């Protein structure tokens, strides 16, 4: 997914390096160095999403976010910050951020999260009882899943993992994103929980034959082919 991004970051070295990396991942990046510049940029050009540093000179990130939300801008915003305490995350999310990432963050992780929040905006949801990706069908309301018409026998966490993959088919999900969304934890486990569960899920998905639909993206995470 190629996105038109606004990166609001006062640290020039970090901003340049991150911008170059994001461009390497096929995104178009504009840099704003403070809050005032950020608000002006958002007014003058359409962006798909904003990466917003919390601590900024002149107008700080929280104020920028409040002004964006105050003027009915539904533009997806990911807060990027050195402050990593839970209360600060909650503050950021309550102020209207779509995601909250603690510095430093790999460009691939940031890119995956940006894709997820932009996709999340386009998703209508609700209308269909099932979600589908290729030959995999998941019914979140019935807690059932099928591949190629054959019902899959999944544990609770395996089911949640598959549902997350199907809902985000063809997009990379990082391990941190999966821990947050499937396990509901705000910390990084030191063991390979995600890898173990993905391996179990793969075994169950391919038990009745068929190709492995989950792709490992080295150093980043996993992706389900749709």
């Amino acid at each position, binding site marked *: 997914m190629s996105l038109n991004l606004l990166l609001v970051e006062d640290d020039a070295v970090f901003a340049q390096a991150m911008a170059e990396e994001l461009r390497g991942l096929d995104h178009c990046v504009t840099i704003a160095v403070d809050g005032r510049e950020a608000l002006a940029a958002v007014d003058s050009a359409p962006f798909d999403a904003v990466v917003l540093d919390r601590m900024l000179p002149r107008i700080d990130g929280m104020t920028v976010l409040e002004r964006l939300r105050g003027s009915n801008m539904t533009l997806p915003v990911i807060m990027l910050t*050195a*402050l990593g305490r*839970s209360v600060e995350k909650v503050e950021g999310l309550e102020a209207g951020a779509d995601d909250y990432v603690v*510095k*430093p963050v790999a460009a691939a992780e940031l890119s995956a999260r940006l894709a997820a929040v932009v996709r999340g905006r386009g998703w209508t949801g609700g209308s269909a009882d099932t979600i589908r990706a290729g030959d995999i069908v998941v019914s979140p309301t019935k807690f059932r899943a099928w591949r190629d018409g054959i019902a899959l026998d999944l*544990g609770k966490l395996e089911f949640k993992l598959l549902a997350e993959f199907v809902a985000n088919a063809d997009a990379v999900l990082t391990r941190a994103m999966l821990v947050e969304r499937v396990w509901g934890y705000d910390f990084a486990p030191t*063991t390979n929980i995600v890898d173990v569960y993905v391996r179990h899920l793969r075994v169950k998905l391919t038990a009745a034959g068929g190709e492995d639909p989950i792709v490992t993206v080295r150093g980043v995470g996993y992706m389900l082919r749709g």
Partner: protein
Amino acid sequence: MRFRSLRALTLAFLLAFLLATIGTGFAIHGITLQTIERLVDRRILVVSDAIAGAPGDRRPADVFRRIDAAMRERDTGDIGLLLVDANGNRLGGNIALSRRLPLGFSTIARDDRIAGLSAGRALVRDVGGGMTLTTVAETEPFDDYNAARTRIYLIGFGSIVLIVVGGMVFFVVTIGRRIGETRRTVEAIIDGDMTRRVPIHPSGGEFAHQAMAFNRMLDRISDLMASISNVSNDIAHDLRTPLARLRSQLALALRRAETEAQRDDLEAAIAMSDELLAMFAAMLRIAEVEGGDRRAAFAALDLADLVREVGDMMQPVAADSGRQLDIAVDGPTRIVGDRQLLGQAMVNLIENAIRHTPAGTRIGIGVLATDAATTLTVTDNGPGIPADRRKLALRRFGRLDPSRHDAGHGLGLALIDAIVRLHRGTLSLEDADPGLRVVITLRRD
């Protein structure tokens, strides 16, 4: 120590006060009686002297005359007089006696059945010629004087005692309440609620001054804590920013790398910076948990349910590494706490057990609830930790492998300890013989 409690001191004071009051009552009573007796004695001596006359003037006729005169006179009309001969025969006077009184002064009571007299004093003297003169006077200014005096004592001293006891009770209750307010504030602050203050009563006085001084001290402490917290936020920002730069610079270099060897080196460098960041994140997490802010988000939860959930989640991870994870829970175990943090503590404990034991080890997680406490245990039958090194294991960066080549940053148990303390519990490492047993005890209240 027990005798120094406020209540014991008050009781001791009241006892002393009562004894003093009763003693005073008896002393007043005794002195009053003595004084009255002395006055009455002096009076009957004067009357008796006058009637007896001088030694040469004691003819019976003269004595009779003087008795009659005394009985008629207003000043001496209330005095009882009796003249008897050597054989005890009554010769004259206005009273009769039921017994013979000894010579000299004596006390008369109601038993002596003298008409109109309940208590008095008598003086018996020889007036010559074998005759004996008895002079009697009342020691009571009015009838039932004793009963009236008792009433006066009861009402007078009784009201004093009531006022003092009432005052003491009021005093004790007031002081107790003020001390209680201070204690509750202190307890709330020990539990991490730095916003609590001692209420200041508008009436002012010593307690209000004390409370104000105490509150000023608390304000100062929270200012200091806030500035420490600001410093740590600044450190977080100041250190994470250059680390973020370093990491993105390395990532950029990796993208531009031309040879496989360069890529390997850069990936290793990125992994090292990630390790550094993980250690940093763990330190900030410990600081956050120790700050106690998360206690505001405490909610009722079923610990057995959480153990089952975490256990189920970790079983495949344990199995994947060749270890077995057993879960032992009974019925629901209700506690109040932070589900996220308790879950993290359990995950970290199981991860520790997996990391520090050989393949084939059995790991167990369980909950035991008694009336007094809820205990969460994670046990393994691996090599364990020698008793003298268990304390080191709980210390920050206290890693047992001196070469420090194993995985982890040595902050795992310190974080778990902080989480347990946030829940007002205790963490201990025990010998599972063989293996290690980590015990988390949460008070029930």
